[in-house]
C-alpha cells in the first residue's frame, strides 16, 4: 500500500510518501502500527483529533477499512480558500 503525508503531518513523519506491505485492516489499527515505528510517527499521530484521513482520495474516518493495494493519506484539517 501507499502512505501519503501532507502539511505538518509530513513534516513530523519526515517524508511525504512511503510504501508498506500490510494486510487489510482498519485505519485505527494502521495508525497504531505506525506509532510503533518511531518517535516521529508517534508525534505525528499523538493527537488524532487533529489528523484527517483519506482512502483512495476520499475522505474517510478512523473506522474505515483499507486494503493492501490502497492509497491512504494523513493530513491536518484542511485550510483552503480564504477569508
Amino acid at each position, binding site marked *: 500500500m501507499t502512505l501519503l503525508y501532507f502539511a505538518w503531518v509530513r513534516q513530523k513523519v519526515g517524508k511525504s510518501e512511503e510504501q508498506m506491505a500490510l494486510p487489510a485492516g482498519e485505519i485505527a489499527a494502521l495508525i497504531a502500527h505506525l506509532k510503533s515505528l518511531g518517535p516521529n510517527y508517534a508525534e505525528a499521530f499523538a493527537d488524532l483529533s487533529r489528523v484527517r484521513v483519506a482512502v483512495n482520495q476520499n475522505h474517510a474516518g478512523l473506522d474505515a477499512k483499507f486494503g493492501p493495494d490502497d492509497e491512504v*493519506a494523513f493530513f*491536518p*484539517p484542511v*485550510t*483552503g480558500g480564504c*477569508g
Partner: protein
Amino acid sequence: MKIFIRIQHEDFDLNREVTVLAGDGESGAVASFTGHVRREKDLSTLTLEHYPDMTEAEIARLVGEAGNRWPLTGVTVVHRVGPLKPGERIVLVAVASPHRHAAFAACEFLMDYLKTQAPFWKEETRGSEHHWVEHRASDDQATKRWQK
C-alpha cells in the same frame, strides 16, 4: 453544465474566466468570488500545499452536488498553490445560471465546502518563523447551514 477546475501556480484573469464560462449566452447570471491573501502583521508569504490526486476529484464532487441543488449552466473553480504574497489572488469560484439567485447561492455553497473539504493547507511565513494555519471551527459551522 460546463465545468472548469484548475489547480495552478500562476495567477488567473477573472474577466477571461467569466467570458469562457458564460460568454455563449446560455447563462443570464454569473456570480463569482475571488479570494485574496489578507495582509496581516509580519506575514510575508502564504504557501499553499495540496494533495494533487485528490484535489480536483474532491472539487468535482462539490460542483456535482451544487449542480444537483441549483439549475446551473457552468462552474469554474481555480485554486492557486505555492508561495503567495499579501494581496495576491488565491481562489476563484464562478457560477453561471439562467437566474441570479441560483448563481449567488451556489457560489457561496461552493466556497463554504471548498474550505472544509478540498485538501489544501496553508503555511504562513512571518519573519523567519513558519507555521501552519489552523482549521477554524467557524468554517465547519458555515457548511452546516447547507445541510438538509
